[in-house]
């Protein structure tokens, strides 16, 4: 017997749950502007999230997937990317999407049952929301291949959950990215649950970062409640990919503090104590503690920020609520570039009935 290969999985955290540095902070974290900007974004997302849940409860929104507790992971990803990079999200990474330019009103439209929610006016090349689990990992790999072929210094990023690491598409994407050294970073947000299925039932793998070993690419685990760690290692992975050194996998450890979606009742399958313990180490608190400690933040600023966020969210809600239903013809007009002949009659029929038509 001889050892022919060995691998190590590393874990990184910069701020501990009390907001105390547990490692030397990276450069960008010396810049208070940047930290505050991330804190502002995390706060915005959280306020947006609460509002969205209210809208759903009052019948003004469809099923909604909360991002509560994931703010550091999501914002860290968004902050590390360049505008020309490309994001292939799943369905709850609002912190990353907003940073990329997606509008809150678009997110609401999406969960409000309107395709215009994936129109992404200000994130023109990003992939839309993606519900079929892990399929987006392949889109990110394909996007990266397009950039590689054209010699563009751009990267693609996909995000999926712990549950998503069980889908074949996830592994296939990692593997092809490794084989072709594609400029793509795969992020796994390990929030411990896939609806009601806990991580132990999902896989025997001790970490999700080690899934990278199967593809021969680097894998790293970071504290996903620490926005500094997420952003730092995302930046490093993106730089590396941009230099042509290939893909990487980053596992961000966090926790889904909410139900899976508003259609779910998590109390059926998980213990209150577990949720409480996770709430104690949630991401906003931690960054705020650090900022306060550094003299960069105080109650007044917090209050002002919250008021500002509420205002922005309210404006988005208003824009959403005031968006009239799309014309029924939209069903047909975005199917192909040009409407096929046999659809002309169907389109007319849809219009006819939409006008309350009777023969």
């Amino acid at each position, binding site marked *: 017997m001889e050892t022919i290969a060995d691998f190590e999985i590393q874990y990184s955290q910069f701020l501990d749950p009390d907001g105390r540095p547990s490692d030397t902070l990276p450069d960008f974290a010396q810049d208070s502007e940047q930290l505050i900007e991330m804190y502002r974004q995390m706060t915005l997302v959280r306020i947006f999230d609460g509002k969205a849940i209210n809208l759903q409860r009052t019948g003004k929104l*469809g099923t909604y997937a909360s991002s509560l507790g994931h703010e550091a992971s999501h914002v860290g990803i968004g902050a590390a990317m360049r505008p020309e990079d490309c994001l292939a999200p799943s369905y709850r990474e609002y912190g990353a999407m907003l940073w990329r330019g997606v509008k809150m009103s678009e997110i609401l439209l999406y969960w409000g*049952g*309107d395709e215009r929610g994936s129109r992404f006016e200000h994130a023109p090349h990003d992939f839309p929301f993606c519900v079929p689990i892990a399929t987006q990992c392949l889109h990110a790999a394909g996007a990266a291949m397009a950039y590689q072929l054209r010699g563009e210094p751009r990267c693609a990023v996909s995000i999926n959950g712990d549950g998503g690491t*069980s889908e*074949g598409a996830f592994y296939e994407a990692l593997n092809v990215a490794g084989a072709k050294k594609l400029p793509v970073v795969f992020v796994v947000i390990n929030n411990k649950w896939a609806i009601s299925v806990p991580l132990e039932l*999902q896989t025997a793998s001790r970490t999700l970062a080690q899934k990278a070993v199967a593809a021969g690419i680097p894998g790293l685990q970071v504290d996903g409640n620490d926005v500094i760690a997420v952003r730092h290692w995302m930046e490093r992975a993106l730089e590396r990919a941009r230099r042509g050194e290939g893909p990487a996998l980053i596992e961000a450890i966090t926790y889904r503090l909410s139900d899976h979606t508003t259609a*779910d009742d998590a109390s059926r399958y998980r213990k209150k104590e577990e949720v409480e313990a996770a709430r104690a180490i949630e991401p906003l608190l931690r960054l705020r503690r650090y900022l306060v400690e550094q003299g960069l933040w105080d109650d007044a600023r917090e209050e002002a920020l919250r008021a500002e966020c509420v205002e922005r969210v309210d404006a988005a809600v208003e824009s959403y609520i005031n968006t009239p239903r799309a014309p029924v013809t939209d069903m047909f007009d975005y199917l192909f570039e040009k409407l096929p002949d046999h659809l002309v009659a169907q389109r007319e029929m849809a219009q006819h009935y939409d006008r309350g038509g009777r023969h």
Partner: protein
Amino acid sequence: MAAITLIEGVTRALAHEMERDERVIVLGEDVGVNGGVFRATAGLQQRFGDQRVQDTPLAEAMIAGLSVGMAAQGMRPVAEIQFEGFVYPAVDQIVNHAARLRTRTRGRLTCPMVLRVPYGGGIHAPEHHSDSPEAMFAHMPGIRVVIPSSPARAYGLLLAAIRSPDPVVFFEPKRIYRLQKQEVPDDGEALPLDVCYTLREGEDVTVVTWGAMTWETLKAADQLADDGISCEIIDVATISPLDHETILESVERTGRLCIVQEAPRSFGVASEIAAVVAEQALYSLRTPISRVTGYDTIMPLFRLETEYMPSVQRVVDGIRAALEE
């Protein structure tokens, strides 16, 4: 005896067969403690334990492939695919294996498995949660495609599906999961898997449908009855293999045919029914066949889904069309 809903009919059939036959195993995403996202498997894990009701990792090809493997080795897996939009990764295992294991091994290995798939629109669900892909599976030789449309048929057909020595894709019309309550005795009586069900007898026109659209169709027939039009309504239920006889016999009597399906219009189940009639009962047809269907477009997100799906009015109009020379 309390009346139950369609989804409770599913649960009751599962429990009945698990009790009766220890080879029956329930598996899928969130079917355990959570009892399924629709609650179809609610209480089963508590009752039968976490071996016979198993949560799986999140991978549909795996759920189907695992079921094939288990079925070939003497178990009777009943797997749940959470929504029809996630059944596509399982297609390979269904077409290339489940459907042909008996054929490929000349009967040595068989594949008595059931894949339960909630399907269809109308529940204000998110993206990829509202398709009607039954035709894709109906075209594959070697599997049965079954769709119940009432609590009693959910119970009786699912029992039959689980007992079937061959694989069954069992689509459950999620829009009517809780629409109607019916008394369904837990008597273990399976329904036949090779006949269509005549829901209402009539003389003027044969209306063939299945799944949730049976509801719009029955309502349309009520409206038309007020105008003195008598509709014979057939719930296909056992989509494939298709029972030609019941349909042909009816069309030969009424001379008119309207088919109602929620799925996109072209290349759907309605097309096959039309083809069978145009081939075998053409001379009985007094008027052109009429199809009332979803449009040949992507099922829209829910703000427009009502505009996509055949409404009672559209069904009424479609039946009237079949009555016009």
